[in-house]
C-alpha cells in the first residue's frame, strides 16, 4: 500500500450553524485515483475548497505529503503541487487558449516577475504550453479566446490548466459536468491516461465514470464521510446503499 | 482640560457626525439595495442647501422652506434615478462611477447657472437663534442642538421604518436578495425609485440643516461626498447601523482631532514640530481612521450578510 499523499484529519466546517464538513477523516494515497461521491449538497465542493484553501476549516488539519497546509493561502498550496479544476469552468475568458495554458505553465516556472522579455516568445514556456494543450486535444484551438470555446472544449482546457504544472495531486471537481455522451466518453479516456502517472482526487456524479476510474471511493453524506473503500466494498456497503445509492439507484 | 470646551467640541463633533449620517445613510441604502454607486449623492446635499436658501428668501420662513424643499430634492433624486441610474443597474461599477461623476459636473454647472458662484446665506428665525447653557458651563448656539436632535429623530424614524413597516421589509428583502424579491412580484422599479428619492431627501435635509451655519456653496457637495464614502466604508457598505456608528465616530475624530491634536503631539515632540505636524495629521484623521479599521476589518465595522448576487 502506498503512503498517504493527502490527509484530512477531523475537519469541521459550518456556515451559519449548518455543518458542511463534520469530522471528516480522509486520505488520498500516492498514485491512486480516489473518488469522492455523495448526493447534491453533501458538502463535496466545500471539502475541496478547504483542501485547496479557498475556505479555512473551523477545526482539524489538512496535510499534504507530511506538511501541514491547513492555514496556507491558495497560491502557496498550488505551488506545493495541488492543482484543481472547477465544477463551473473557470478560465481567463478574455485571453486566448494559448495564453491560458501559458499562464498555467508560467505559474510553476517561477517567472511571473519577469517584466520585459516576452512570455509568448520564450521557447521553453511556449513548448510546454503547446505540449499540454496537445495532451488534451486542443492543439487546433490555440489562438481562440477561451471565452468563445464550446463547453466541451472549455472542460478540456480546464483540465489542461491543472496538468500544466506537473502537480502532485490533481483535484477534479466534476470534470464531466454538462458534457454530452461523446464528450464524456472522451473525458473518461483522457482521465484514464492521466491516471497512469497522476494521483487524482475526483468528484463526480457520473457513476459509470467513477466506477471505471476510481481505485477507491469515499462517500460523503450531509458533511459526514460514511464509507471509504474499493468500488466493490462501497457498492456493497449497506449504509451507502441506503443513504445514497438507494435514492439514486438508476445512476449506479 | 476645560470641561466647557470639551463639551462644546463634543457637541460640534456630534453635529458633524449627524450631518454625515444623513448623507451616508442614503448612499449606503442605494448601494446596499441597488448595488449602485452614486457619486452624485453629494449634489443632493448641495441642492438641498441652495433650494432651501432660495425658498427661505421667497417665503421669509426657513422652517417652511425646508418643508417645501424636501419633496423638490426627492423629485430631483427620482429624475436622476430614471435618467442616469436605472439604465446602469447591474452594469459595471466603473460605468456607474463615470456616469455619476458626469452627473456631478452637470448638476454643479446647472447650480452655477441658477445661483451663481457666490455662496448664499440663510437666516434663522429668532427662536432658533438663541444660545443655551449646558451643564459644565458650555454655552452653545441652540441651533446646533436642533441639528443633533432632528438628525437623531430622523435616524430613529429610519430605523423604525426599515424594521417595522411593510415597505421597509420589502427594502430589506430586496437588499438581501434582489432576484428573489423580483421573482416574488415586488415592483422593484418603484421600490428603487422610492429608495433613491428617500436617499436624496435625506442628503438634501442635511444640506438644508447646515446652510444656516455655513451658507450654501457650490463646493459643499464635492466636499461631503468623499467623507460620506469613507463613513460607509468604515461602517460596512449597505449597513444603516454601520453608517450611523461610523458617521458619529468620524465626526468626533475629525472635530476633536482638529481641536486637540497639537496639545497631544506637544506631549511627545517639540512645540514647533507639533505645530506643523498636528494640522497635517488632523486633516487626514478620518482617512487614517478608515485605514486603521480596514486593516483590522476589510469589510468595515458592520459588514452586511452575504448578498444574494455577490459576484
Amino acid at each position, binding site marked *: 500500500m502506498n503512503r498517504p499523499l493527502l490527509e484530512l484529519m477531523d475537519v469541521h466546517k459550518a456556515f451559519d450553524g449548518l455543518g458542511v464538513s463534520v469530522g471528516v477523516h480522509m486520505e488520498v494515497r500516492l498514485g491512486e485515483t480516489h473518488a469522492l461521491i455523495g448526493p447534491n449538497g453533501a458538502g463535496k465542493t466545500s471539502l475541496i475548497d478547504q483542501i485547496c484553501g479557498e475556505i479555512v476549516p473551523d477545526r482539524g488539519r489538512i496535510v499534504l505529503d507530511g506538511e501541514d497546509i491547513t492555514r496556507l*493561502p491558495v*497560491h502557496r498550496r*498550488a*505551488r506545493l503541487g495541488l492543482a484543481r479544476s*472547477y465544477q463551473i469552468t*473557470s*478560465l*481567463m*475568458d*478574455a*485571453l486566448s487558449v494559448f*495564453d491560458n495554458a*501559458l*499562464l498555467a505553465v*508560467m*505559474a*510553476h516556472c517561477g517567472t*511571473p*516577475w*519577469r517584466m*520585459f522579455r*516576452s*512570455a*509568448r*516568445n520564450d521557447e521553453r514556456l511556449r513548448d510546454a504550453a503547446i505540449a499540454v494543450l496537445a495532451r488534451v486535444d486542443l492543439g487546433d484551438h490555440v489562438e481562440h479566446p477561451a471565452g468563445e470555446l464550446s463547453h466541451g472544449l472549455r472542460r478540456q482546457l480546464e483540465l489542461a*490548466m491543472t496538468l500544466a*504544472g506537473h502537480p502532485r495531486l490533481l483535484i477534479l471537481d466534476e470534470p464531466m459536468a454538462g458534457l454530452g455522451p461523446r464528450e464524456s466518453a472522451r473525458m473518461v479516456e483522457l482521465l484514464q491516461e492521466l491516471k497512469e502517472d497522476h494521483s487524482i482526487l475526483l468528484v463526480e456524479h457520473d457513476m459509470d465514470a467513477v466506477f471505471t476510474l476510481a481505485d477507491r471511493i469515499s462517500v460523503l453524506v450531509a458533511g459526514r464521510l460514511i464509507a471509504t473503500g474499493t468500488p466493490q466494498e462501497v457498492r456493497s456497503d449497506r449504509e451507502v446503499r441506503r443513504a445514497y445509492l438507494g435514492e439514486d439507484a438508476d445512476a449506479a | 482640560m476645560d470641561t466647557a470646551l470639551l463639551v462644546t467640541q463634543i457637541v460640534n463633533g456630534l453635529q458633524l457626525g449627524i450631518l454625515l449620517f444623513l448623507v451616508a445613510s442614503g448612499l449606503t441604502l442605494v*448601494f446596499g439595495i441597488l448595488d449602485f454607486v452614486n457619486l452624485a449623492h453629494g449634489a443632493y446635499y448641495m441642492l438641498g442647501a441652495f433650494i432651501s436658501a432660495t425658498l427661505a428668501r421667497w417665503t421669509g420662513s426657513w422652517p417652511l422652506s425646508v418643508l417645501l424643499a424636501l419633496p423638490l430634492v426627492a423629485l430631483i433624486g427620482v429624475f436622476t434615478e430614471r435618467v442616469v441610474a436605472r*439604465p*446602469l*443597474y*447591474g*452594469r*459595471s*461599477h*466603473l*460605468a456607474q*462611477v*463615470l*456616469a455619476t*461623476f*458626469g*452627473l456631478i*459636473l*452637470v*448638476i*454643479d*454647472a446647472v447650480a452655477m*447657472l441658477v445661483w451663481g458662484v457666490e455662496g448664499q446665506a440663510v437666516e434663522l428665525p429668532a427662536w432658533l437663534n438663541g444660545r443655551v447653557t449646558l451643564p459644565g458651563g458650555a454655552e452653545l448656539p441652540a441651533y446646533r442642538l436642533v441639528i443633533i436632535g432632528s438628525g437623531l429623530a430622523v435616524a430613529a424614524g429610519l430605523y423604525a421604518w426599515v424594521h417595522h413597516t411593510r415597505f421597509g421589509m420589502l427594502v430589506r428583502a430586496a437588499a438581501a436578495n434582489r432576484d428573489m424579491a423580483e421573482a416574488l412580484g415586488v415592483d422593484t422599479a418603484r421600490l428603487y425609485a422610492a429608495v433613491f428619492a428617500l436617499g436624496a431627501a435625506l442628503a438634501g435635509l442635511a444640506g438644508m440643516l447646515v446652510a444656516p451655519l455655513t451658507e450654501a456653496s457650490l463646493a459643499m457637495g*464635492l466636499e461631503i461626498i468623499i467623507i460620506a*464614502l*469613507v463613513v460607509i*466604508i468604515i461602517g460596512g457598505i449597505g449597513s444603516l447601523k454601520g453608517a450611523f456608528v461610523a458617521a458619529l465616530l468620524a465626526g468626533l475624530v475629525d472635530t476633536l482631532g482638529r481641536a486637540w491634536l497639537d496639545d497631544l503631539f506637544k506631549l511627545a515632540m517639540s512645540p514647533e514640530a507639533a505645530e506643523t505636524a498636528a*494640522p497635517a495629521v488632523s*486633516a487626514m484623521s478620518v*482617512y487614517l481612521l478608515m*485605514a486603521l479599521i*480596514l*486593516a483590522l476589518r*476589510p469589510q468595515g465595522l458592520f459588514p452586511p450578510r452575504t448578498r444574494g448576487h455577490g459576484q
Partner: protein
Amino acid sequence: MSRILRTLAPWLEGLLLVLLAAAPLLTAWTSQPFWLDLATRLTILAIAAAALNLVLGIGGLVSFGHAAFLGIGAYAVGIPAWHALYGGAEWIASANGFFHFALAAGAGALFALFTGPLALRTRGVHFIMITMAFGQMVFYLLQSLETYGGDDGLTIDTRSEFPLANLDDPAQLHWLAFATLLAVLLLIWRMREAPFGLALAGARTGERRMRALGYDVTRIRLAAYVLSGALTAIAGAWLANHAAFVSPSMTDWTRSGELMFMVILGGAGRLLGPLTGAAAFVLLEEVLSSMTTYWHLPFGLLLILAALWQAGVFSKEGSST
C-alpha cells in the same frame, strides 16, 4: 461604427505621436506658442493616463485616486525647489532635476506601497472608494502644508535643473516630456507581453483561477500599483515644471475622474489608448471652455453618454429601460 474606429485608431494615434514630436517646430513655424502649451499638457496627461491604464486597463483595478500621485510628484519638485531658493530643510533643498524626478518616483511608489495593501484587500466598489479616499487624504494633507502655500499652492521660481537642457525653454521641456511618454509607453508595451503583464491580465479576468494556479495575485497587483504610482508621480513632476506651479487642487478627486475618463475613452487596456483619451480630453476642455464658462455642463453630459455607451446600454435595444 466601432469597427471603423478600431481600424482608424492606430493611424490616428501614429499621427498624434508625430504631431507631438514635431509640436515645437510646428508652433515655431506658425508662431502660435499656445499650441505648444497645449501639446505639452497633452503629453504629460498622456503619461499619467498610460500609468493609470496599467492598473485600470490591464489589471482591471479601478483606481479613483490617481490624482494623488500627480500631486505627490508635483510637490516633489515644488518643495525641494522652494527650499533651494529660500533656504531651510537642507536635507531636501535641491534644484537638481534628477533629484526631483527620483524623489517624485520614490514618493509615489512609497505612497502606493503603503495604501496599496489596504486597498487591495478589497474588491470592486470597495476598491474604487478606498483609492478615492486615500487620494482625498493627500489633498487635505497638501492643503494643510501652510509653509508651502496651503490651499493657494506654491509658485515654482526655478524649474528642475538638468545638465545640457533648460526646462525654461518650452520646446526643450516638451521634448523631454515627450521622451518620457515614449519611454513609459515602451515600458508598458514590453511589460504587457512579458510574464508579469500576462499574469496581471490573467488576474483581471480570472482571479480565482490564477490563485489556484499558484499566483500570488495580491503581490502582482501591488507591484503594478506601485509602478503605476511612481509613473504617475513622474507625470506630476512634469506637470509642476510645465505650469511652474503646484497646488492641492492637482490632487482633487475630480482630477482622478478625468484621468479615468481618458483611459476609458481611449479604450481601457489599449497601449496607445491613453494618448487618444488625453488628446480628446484636452481638446474638449479647450473647445468647450472657449465656448462657455459652464463647460462642465456639456463635458458632464458627454461623460454620462460615454458611460452609458461603455456599459452597452445603447447596443441592446429595448433592454433595461
